[in-house]
């Protein structure tokens, strides 16, 4: 009952926003700024030309590569840092220095190193999502209740088995939180990265529409698509929080 009212309100707020936008465009008499309807037509046009799917696929492809690479390395490093205080001391300073640097700042270096190719945006995405996931994993390992570790030692569980059956699952809830944040940032950055170069992706679509004839309807169409896909990705990640293995943390 409450949920139904909630979703009704959410839709109502969106409808209000769109209506205000429409009225504002009408009242101002702007010739360049599109109305919502023109944006819808823009999306339809992109679909008909077959370019929309191409751009979406290109962006998702870059995010997938960069993000999965970052997740693999970040979780591995995070587990090591959380488990071994030596590794933690050794790596933590560097991680903390690199973490606050915006991925955008790396764009010149990326172009210098990798040129105008798919590698540059993948590298930027890797950088952006790597750190939240390292931090989440380290925190996850460090906050595992001491008695679980002791119990494992008591039963002679050690080494790789300890990592697989105790450390990793014990830290999993926080790892998932880190992964969710990481994916959000990755999607944020892919668009920025694509604005610089190359010839595909949703970021490219936005910049290209502006440069090639002030098609602001397509600019906003690109923005809407980015928002919707971002929402879907987040929903996908939150599905991980419903796994049986983490219900002990989330389920209560």
């Amino acid at each position, binding site marked *: 009952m409450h949920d139904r009212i909630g979703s009704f309100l959410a839709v109502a707020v969106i409808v209000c926003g769109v209506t205000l936008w429409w009225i504002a465009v009408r009242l101002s008499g702007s010739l360049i700024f599109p109305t919502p309807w023109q944006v819808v037509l823009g999306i339809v046009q992109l679909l008909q030309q077959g370019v929309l799917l191409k751009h979406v696929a290109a962006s998702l492809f870059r995010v997938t590569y960069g993000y999965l690479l970052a997740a693999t390395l970040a979780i591995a490093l995070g587990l090591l840092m959380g488990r071994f205080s030596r590794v933690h001391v050794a790596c933590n300073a560097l991680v903390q220095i690199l973490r606050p640097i915006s991925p955008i700042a790396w764009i010149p270096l990326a172009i210098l190193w990798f040129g105008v190719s798919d590698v540059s945006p993948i590298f930027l995405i890797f950088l952006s999502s790597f750190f939240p996931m390292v931090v989440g994993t380290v925190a996850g390992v460090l906050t595992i209740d001491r*008695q*679980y570790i*002791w*119990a494992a030692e*008591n*039963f002679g569980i050690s080494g790789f088995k300890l990592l697989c*059956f105790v450390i990793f*699952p014990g830290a999993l809830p926080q790892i998932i939180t880190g992964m969710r944040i990481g994916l959000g940032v990755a999607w944020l950055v892919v668009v920025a990265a694509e604005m610089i170069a190359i010839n595909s992706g949703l970021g490219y679509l936005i910049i290209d529409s502006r440069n090639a004839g002030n098609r602001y309807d397509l600019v906003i169409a690109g923005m809407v698509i980015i928002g919707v896909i971002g929402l879907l990705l987040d929903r996908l990640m939150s599905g991980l929080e419903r796994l*049986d293995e983490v219900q002990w943390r989330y*389920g209560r």
Partner: protein
Amino acid sequence: MDAKISVIDIWKAFPTPKGPLPVLAEVNFTVAEGEFVALVGPSGCGKTTLLHILAGFVHPDRGEVRVDDRPIQGPSRQGIYVFQRGAIFPWLTVQQNMTLVLSDLPPTERQRLADEYLELAGLEGFGRAYPHQLSGGMLQRVELARALVTRPEILYLDEPLGALDALTRLRMRIELRRLLAHERCTTLMVTHDVEEALDLADQVIVFSPRPATIQSTMSVPFPHPRPLMHRAMLDLKQQILQGLGVEDSEAPTAGVPLENPTRSRVLRPRAGRARAYVRSAVPSPTAAVSAECFDVVVIGGGPGGASAATLLAERGLKVVLLERQRFPRFHTGESLLPALWELWDRLDVTAEIEAAGFVPKQGIIFSMTRSGEEVALLTAEYPEYFPRTYTYHVERSRFDQILLDNARRKGTEVREGWSVQEVLFEAGRARGVLASPPDGAPRSILADVVVDATGRDSLIARRLGWRRPDPALNKIAHFTHFTGAGRRSPLEGFPEQDILIEATVTEVHIVDDGWLWYIPLANDVVSVGAVLDAKAAGQMRGGPQERFNHAVAGCPKVKDWLQGARPLMPMQTISNIAYINDRFIGHGFVLVGDAAMFVDPIFASGVTLAIRSGIFAADCILDAFERRDFSEDSLKPYEERFRVPMSRIFRMINNWYELLDREDGRNLILRSRHTPLLRERLIVLLSGGYDKMDLESFLLTASQG
């Protein structure tokens, strides 16, 4: 006897900002193979740290622990630790938890052992559950099963039952004993529950407060299951409590459970006594003076307890009744019901009550303050239901005394001024009570059946967590007695027929947020009470007196009557009025009267229900004695005859209540003026005729109207 474990001169301190905090000082002891040792001490004394050191999780600052004469090198599978808060991996299923610790075995063997031990722990079928889906007691059993499945030589138990509620705790204690009997490992258990230690351990080591040193060591030379209420056991318990500095040696009250939160202040040991060395020898056989034995012990001498005792003693059972106060004593609930005549006949007390000079009551009058409408419901309108159409308003001090004297006359041994510390349970069965005579040391009184008639104290039900307050009937009552107050003139407001000129009525005046009772007693005394919605009362300023005054101020008639009246005692309060227990019986015990349930006072049913339940309970107990079977099954008829129907009524009162105190067309009382059938049933209900009609259908139809 070779030592399995030797603890040699252990010292341990923890660093704090203010310098090292010593936790353990010079701890030495040994444990023989297969022995069960309990480590007992005040909270935070360092017992758990000691157990961590024994298991190898923590290194001592000085000293060493040797197992099989080899120094321990950290945790190992030789000794498994069971953590206080549980360390079952919550991300694995129960089955996975079991197989993970067996991963050195081939998979089929792993599976077989896991199944075997889950079954042993009574958890078959729960293998695929995740820990968070299990109850506390079940989790504790998983924990034990996981520890035992690895076949450890030693088991370290850290407050293994500490997180459980009282009843589960008791059950788990039996379970633990069973599991350990199966495995026979050497066991060390940390606990703060002395009774638990005495029930399980071969040896009890008592620690001083921090830094923990060993204060005394005692053997418990009794076979299992242990006779916990045995004199010698109680002596041991008391010695341990003394060793903890908890009890005064002059006035020992063995049997006070240490974990009892209301007594937590006694946990603080006295400085002067902390180092006293109490060496307990094995208690000599002559010390084991046998406890007093009865057939039935009744706790509480109110109408419920007295009625049960009367009928039991009359049939030749040896009955002792322990009453905390000395009669006569004040009690509220002055308005009786005509249904009592039949019950009094059963108790053979009718003549005395008639002769006592109580004020007759012929019914109840509802007065709607706002509209000024009044409805009198008199039992005499339907005379066919009850032997007499009136009853009494009684001073309970007097009335209760008559019933108790009657019980005494029928052969009950009545002891006034005796307070019961606790009910003694053995293996889930009530075996008697631990009670103190006036100014004396507590002693155990054993009986086949314990009748809990402790009134609103609900001794047993509270301990077992059976009491269920009805949140929808969350009321609070403030009341007192007045002298010099006015009262309704005998004819005012009554229909002309069927009037006893001498008689009074119980008055119910509906006011905002509740109602007032106004009960005229003999000798110019009236009992006046305000029953208020607890939430509304909580928002009012001031204390009980102010709330009472406020309620009275809302009712011109009562206010007028109380003009110039003098209260005879300070304002009394009862909160959380209505409740009903989940069950009224258990193995070897029954609950009667208010100890079992309390319906809203608007029904004036307290005394009637107490006597009814006392009589029903006595019937059931007499049958149980015929069979010599005091199990739950044997006592069940009482439950079925009394709790089951009453709990249905209780449930419905919810719907019903609001139909009494509203002032519109749906008000039951106002409707009864024009609806004869409704009126008839209302009068029978308000006269206590709970078994004289189909109440359930009445309540249902009434609430629909």
